[in-house]
């Protein structure tokens, strides 16, 4: 068994696609209409196109807002992405106007930072020693 796909609820799929591809640098993998204006919309890392897909799922379920708002208020990230250099990525994303709510913080061997994905979620990036 392996993790093939995971998802984040997003306020607006078009806006999310822009943020996850143009800002973060992922690439679109699947984009299939699934009724109304909803899409089965996934992105992958350009470093691993056959790897785990991230589904940008419309946050239409009534429980989604409550759940996401509670996490954001306590600063809890929904997912974690691995990066080679948290500090460099922090500088790059900060320059693109991304709002960080936790600046890079070294915690033993791991360095993490947390930012707002502008679609309703907090995302953690982390650099771990290989």
């Amino acid at each position: 068994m392996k993790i093939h796909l995971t998802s984040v609820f997003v306020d607006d799929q078009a806006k999310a696609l822009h943020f996850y591809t143009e800002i973060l640098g992922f690439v679109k993998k699947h984009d299939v209409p699934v009724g109304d204006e909803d899409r089965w919309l996934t992105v992958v890392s350009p470093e691993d196109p056959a790897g785990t897909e991230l589904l940008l799922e419309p946050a239409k379920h009534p429980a989604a807002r409550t759940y996401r708002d509670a996490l954001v208020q306590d600063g809890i990230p929904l997912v974690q992405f691995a990066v080679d250099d948290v500090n460099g990525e922090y500088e790059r994303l900060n320059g693109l106007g991304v709002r960080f709510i936790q600046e890079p913080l070294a915690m033993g061997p791991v360095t993490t930072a947390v930012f707002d994905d502008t679609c309703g979620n907090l995302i953690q990036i982390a650099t771990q020693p290989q």
Partner: protein
Amino acid sequence: MADDLFKALADPTRRTILDELTEKSGQTLFEICSRLSMKHQLAISRQGVSQHLAVLEAAGLVETRREGRYKFHDLNTAPLRQIAERWLVTDTTGPEKSTP
């Protein structure tokens, strides 16, 4: 107020939280929890950390602020002055100066 202050300072975990807020004011609950577990190997539940923060807040040492959808915790050292002023010797020629 003074009792709240001494009670808040009497706990080593709460002093560690204050140390971390001294390093950087304006932290989310998640960041404080991360620092306690990863930097200090303090395995405390999020609820436990929330309770410690509530004690610090009651003593006026921590203030919370909402910024849009986020909630940050800031350090306020003003109450500590009460401790210094309570026993401060105003006469500077006193025993404080006679340290060898």
